[in-house]
């Protein structure tokens, strides 16, 4: 059972009933005590009252009245019973003087015996009478409360319900939240007990809003950016349709191929970026061999660099260096840096790939002797789809955004600055483990 209202009702009513029962028990005890002392007194008084009577030959005077609970018995000095108000009774024969309690087959009896001029007078009363009177007293005390208990339950039900109403309001206002309207829940009017819940919810709402906005922006950006290659594809296809000679058709088909390649590349880069965004599921990290990573990237870009007459090579560095991370992601990171360097370095230039480690930790580095990036632009080039003025927009505009996202996944940071020989130096520094 998880209803606070029901739980409170049952607990409170249970507690009240328990208290009442204890009270009744105490009342019963007290009433019994009282009855004992009163009836003992009566026993004594009766005994004393009959002490001076002469019972010779007049037995049976008091017998016969069934309502009478007291039993009176008198013995003469020889131990002969000379009076017995209730001969059928179970009163024990031997009486001790003073008060005593005797157990018989018909229950416990309270007896008072006194001796006077050789006669023994005993007055007895069943103990059950006293218990009955005490129980009646206890019941009397209990009755009004038992009658009032349903009323108390009703009141508890109503009051608890009213006090819980802010929770219902809270639920309504949470239910009203949609992905489009994630404004925080107002804290005014919320009971203190529910305030931590509301604050935690608001915190969640804010984070959710940010995450949704990031996603939405990403999709909007992506859709917007896809228009350019799609426009090119459409135009290229129509130019083929309209071409009226074989040569121009061949040229137009070549253009269309290049357009398809570009669109494919953009989609692949979008996918890579989406996978590198925070929150993406990742396999368990592994040790990644950085020198091997560098060598592989140089091998992969050798043909492209050769075609552009760029001297791409591996610079000297340690033969053994590893970081903990995701090999595929780091390869994508390095490939993007190398591809950028090869793309933006003019023909005849050179691009160096190297790795190493310093005080701050291991690093990967790609340097070129191309035009570099102005200091003012070095932050903005990491933005998705940022295009630098005067650059032909042949890339996807996502390369450095991908580099940045993957670096963040690895707790590494990317810096762009001037290479020693002019040009750009892109460096990824991994934080030292521990």
């Amino acid at each position, binding site marked *: 059972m998880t209803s606070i209202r029901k739980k409170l009702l049952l607990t409170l009513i249970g507690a009240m009933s328990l208290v009442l029962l204890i009270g009744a028990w105490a009342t019963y005890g007290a009433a019994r005590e009282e009855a004992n002392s009163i009836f003992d007194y009566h026993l004594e008084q009766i005994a004393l009252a009959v002490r001076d009577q002469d019972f010779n030959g007049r037995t049976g005077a008091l017998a016969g009245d069934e309502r009478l609970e007291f039993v009176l018995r008198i013995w003469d000095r020889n131990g002969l019973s000379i009076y017995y108000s209730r001969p059928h009774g179970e009163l024990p024969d031997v009486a001790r003087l003073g008060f005593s309690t005797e157990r018989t087959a018909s229950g416990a009896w309270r007896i008072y015996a006194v001796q006077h001029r050789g006669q023994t007078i005993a007055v007895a009363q069943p103990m059950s009478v006293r218990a009955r009177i005490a129980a009646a007293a206890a019941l009397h005390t209990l009755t009004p409360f038992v009658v009032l208990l349903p009323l108390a339950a009703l009141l508890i039900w109503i009051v608890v319900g009213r006090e819980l109403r802010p929770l219902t309001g809270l639920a309504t206002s949470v239910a009203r939240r949609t992905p489009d309207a994630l404004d925080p829940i107002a804290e005014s009017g919320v009971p203190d007990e529910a305030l931590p819940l509301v604050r935690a919810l608001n915190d969640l709402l804010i984070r959710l809003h940010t995450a949704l906005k990031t996603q939405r922006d990403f999709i909007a950006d992506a859709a917007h950016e896809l*228009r350019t290659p*799609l426009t090119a594809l459409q*135009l*290229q296809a129509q130019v083929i349709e309209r071409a*009226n000679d074989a040569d121009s058709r061949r040229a137009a088909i070549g253009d269309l191929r*290049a*357009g398809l390649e570009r669109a494919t590349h953009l989609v692949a880069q979008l996918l890579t970026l989406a996978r590198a965004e925070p929150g993406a599921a990742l396999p368990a990290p592994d040790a990644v061999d950085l020198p091997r990573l560098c060598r592989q990237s140089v091998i992969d870009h050798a043909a492209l660099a050769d075609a552009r007459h760029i001297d791409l090579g591996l610079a000297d560095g340690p033969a053994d260096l590893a970081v903990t991370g995701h090999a595929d992601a780091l390869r994508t990171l390095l490939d993007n840096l190398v591809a950028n360097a090869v793309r933006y370095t003019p023909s005849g230039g050179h691009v160096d790939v190297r790795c190493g480690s310093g005080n701050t930790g291991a690093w990967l580095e790609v340097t070129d002797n191309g035009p570099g990036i102005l200091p003012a632009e070095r932050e903005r080039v990491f933005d998705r789809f940022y*295009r630098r*003025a005067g*650059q032909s927009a042949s890339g996807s505009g996502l390369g450095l955004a991908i580099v940045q996202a993957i670096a963040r996944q690895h707790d590494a940071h990317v810096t762009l600055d001037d290479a020693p020989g002019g040009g750009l130096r892109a460096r990824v520094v991994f934080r030292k483990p521990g």
Partner: protein
Amino acid sequence: MRLLVVEDDAMIGNSLRNGLRQDGYTVDWVSDGTAAELATAATAYDAILLDLGLPGRSGLELLARWRARQNPVPVLIITARDSVADRVLGLDTGADDYLVKPFDLDELSARLRALLRRRAGRATPVIENGPLTLDPASHEVRLDGNEISLSAREFGILHALMEAPGVPLSRSQLEERLYGWQEEIGSNAVEVHIHALRRKLGSDWIRNVRGVGYMVPRQP
């Protein structure tokens, strides 16, 4: 008809140039605002296709500048910005039409023809001058209902002359309309095409105004 394409994406720019050339236009293509400024200062274009998302100077800035200088050239914006606010801003800045990427080349051609038609003060798509008619969309030229077959250059010259019957155009004006930047112009290329036109239409249709240029006489 000479057009300027201002588009920073190499593939789109190249395809637009090729596609519009197929329509018989002479097309110059620049990929940034500075080059566009230089081009419009040097050449009188019949229409400009303008991308808004240019590196450096934005397309809207260029447009505002042309209009501030009272340049009446028809401008057709081609852009990926598709919001109503963007369209309104583009048109209110002085654009004559607005096309959202990706678009159809045939639609672009049709819109261009409409712009050029309006600029010439015509509402009908076919240019008529007495028994001589020219259809810019189908490139059909008819004289007394008979189709006359013309080369692309011949069509271009006749089209330019028929836009304003009775108004002579100089040789250099015709050259400017006919040849893009990279194209070699022979010293008597225009004369060669005029000669061919006269042969096909009859010499009365292309008049030589001595010292000024050529014109198509206005027919009643």
